[in-house]
């Protein structure tokens, strides 16, 4: 019961913090700009991609539809979302220390483990809301503005065309994997937040780690070959696997497993550090 109340407290604190709405506002603005650009001059962008196939394929119907628009938006924005997540979750613990509220919070009759877990859950709820909003803005708004149709995806193996009726469940799966990846970012920033009393440090460190891992992931150097499959950033792009045909189930399962292991490790480290921590702030 007290654990549920603590989760509620943490959600309320996030909901009433002005910074929490930056993420929602940023997604709204970014998606708005992309939708406007595609509505104004989307066909010329699409023609640029399809021109190379026009000698062998003929494209009919509404190519620039809501499904394609949503895919383009996700492709462009999924890299920025971790920053928006870390901005809120990175100070869930250290922000309390910086404000001094950690003293009052930790003299309440709730165990440190429960308190910390309630922060992880609240961070997860925030991440879910951000993902749902991104889904709404990209898929729903995309379909409202551009209509529906078959989805044409260009990936490393070539052009994949997915029928309209075959797309929605793929988006659902893609968003679920994206949520798990972003929840891992949230776990990473909360974990870093347990090590410091500075509210900005964990946010900057989370972004630096993601940037570093992204660079390692994209560098075609053999020395990183064994590390690359274990990096969080490698699996942040796994949502795209849902738009391949046939579906690479093993790859998706592998990504989910690695992200779950990341979460278990990060949460365990956080609990250990937080329970050992002397509150001197």
């Amino acid at each position, binding site marked *: 019961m007290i654990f549920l*109340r603590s989760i*509620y407290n943490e959600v309320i*604190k996030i909901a009433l913090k002005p910074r929490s709405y930056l993420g929602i506002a940023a997604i709204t603005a970014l998606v708005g700009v992309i939708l406007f650009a595609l509505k104004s001059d989307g066909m010329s962008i699409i023609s640029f991609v399809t021109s190379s196939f026009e000698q062998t394929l003929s494209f009919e119907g509404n190519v620039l539809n809501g499904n394609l628009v949503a895919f383009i938006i996700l492709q462009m924005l999924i890299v920025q979302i971790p920053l928006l997540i870390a901005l809120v979750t990175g100070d869930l613990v250290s922000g309390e220390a910086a*404000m001094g509220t950690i*003293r009052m919070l930790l*003299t309440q*009759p709730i165990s440190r483990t429960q308190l910390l877990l309630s922060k992880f859950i609240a961070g997860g709820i925030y991440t879910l809301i951000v993902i749902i909003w991104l889904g709404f803005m990209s898929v729903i708004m995309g379909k409202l503005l551009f209509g529906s149709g078959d989805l044409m995806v260009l990936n490393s193996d070539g052009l994949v065309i997915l029928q309209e009726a075959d797309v929605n469940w793929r988006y659902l799966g893609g968003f679920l994997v994206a949520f798990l990846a972003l929840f891992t970012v949230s776990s990473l920033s909360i974990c870093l937040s347990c090590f410091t009393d500075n509210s900005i440090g964990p946010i900057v460190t989370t972004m630096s780690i993601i940037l570093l891992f992204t660079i390692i992931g994209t560098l075609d150097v053999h020395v990183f070959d064994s590390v690359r499959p274990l990096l969080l950033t490698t699996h942040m792009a796994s949502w795209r696997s849902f738009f391949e045909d046939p579906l690479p189930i093993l790859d998706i399962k592998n990504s989910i497993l690695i992200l779950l292991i990341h979460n278990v490790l990060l949460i365990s480290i956080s609990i250990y550090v937080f329970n*050992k921590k*002397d509150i*001197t702030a």
Partner: protein
Amino acid sequence: MSEKIIEIKSIAKKFGLFEAVKDVSFHVNQGDVFGFLGPNGAGKSTTIRCMLSLIKPDSGSIEIFGKSIFTHRNDILARTGSIIEKPDFYKYLSAYRNLEIFSRLFRLSPSKQEIYKMLDFVGLGGREKDKFSGFSHGMKQRLGIAQTLLHNPDLIVLDEPTTGLDPQGIIDIRNLILRLKNEQHKTVILSSHNLAEIEIICNRMVIINKGVSVVEGEVNALMNHEDLVVRLEVSDKEKAKSVIRLSFPQNKITDINEFSLEISIEKSMISELNKDLVNAGIGIYSIEAKRKLEDYFIKMVNA
């Protein structure tokens, strides 16, 4: 004999090489208003944090309500209210919302009416919806006290509760503590640099210095071992000194200014001193006993 509410035995805590607390022991009885004294850096704050499980001591034991804080943390904290150093709340939330959040984790979380009543009780009636960021230091202290009392704790730990308060606020808090003791039989630990406040409010105390508990006991009993320092303002200081030297040759006399001097003397001898000076034809403009605890504290800390 009163029941022991808190029993701290030989706690020690190091931060790196720095020994913040070396050997602190004391006990607090049911219904005590217990003064917690010590100069800056003496280890008071670390000791209080150890009591409330914010810091884990390296050694020693802490029992509150007969249970160890290390094994019964939640049960103990459910019966304890505290302000440590200064009350910090969420700046972006209102006074009401802050109290609501901090009270929700107690088993019997208070209703909206109870929160409003408590805010009114500490003098923040009408400011319920104002954000904490706009509060003055005194208002923050009052909100801290409201948070401390909201769940009706048996043990109240107040670390410098009157800092930043105006004179009326200080009197209000002092009266509140006395009411908590006399009417509700609460046990209060009061850490303060205001020695007059401790002397007026507390029945027992401990003095901590350099991480060690120096002295502990009943305030009155400890004070009665000590001479009073009496300041006299007289018509003829030199003549007064001669009279005092004759009547009290062992007592220390200190010049203060042209008309004033101080003498260290037993309380029972003050009337005798007064009589001798009047009989010698010396006009006495004022006779004032200086705060004893201040001197006692300085003596203990410098010992």
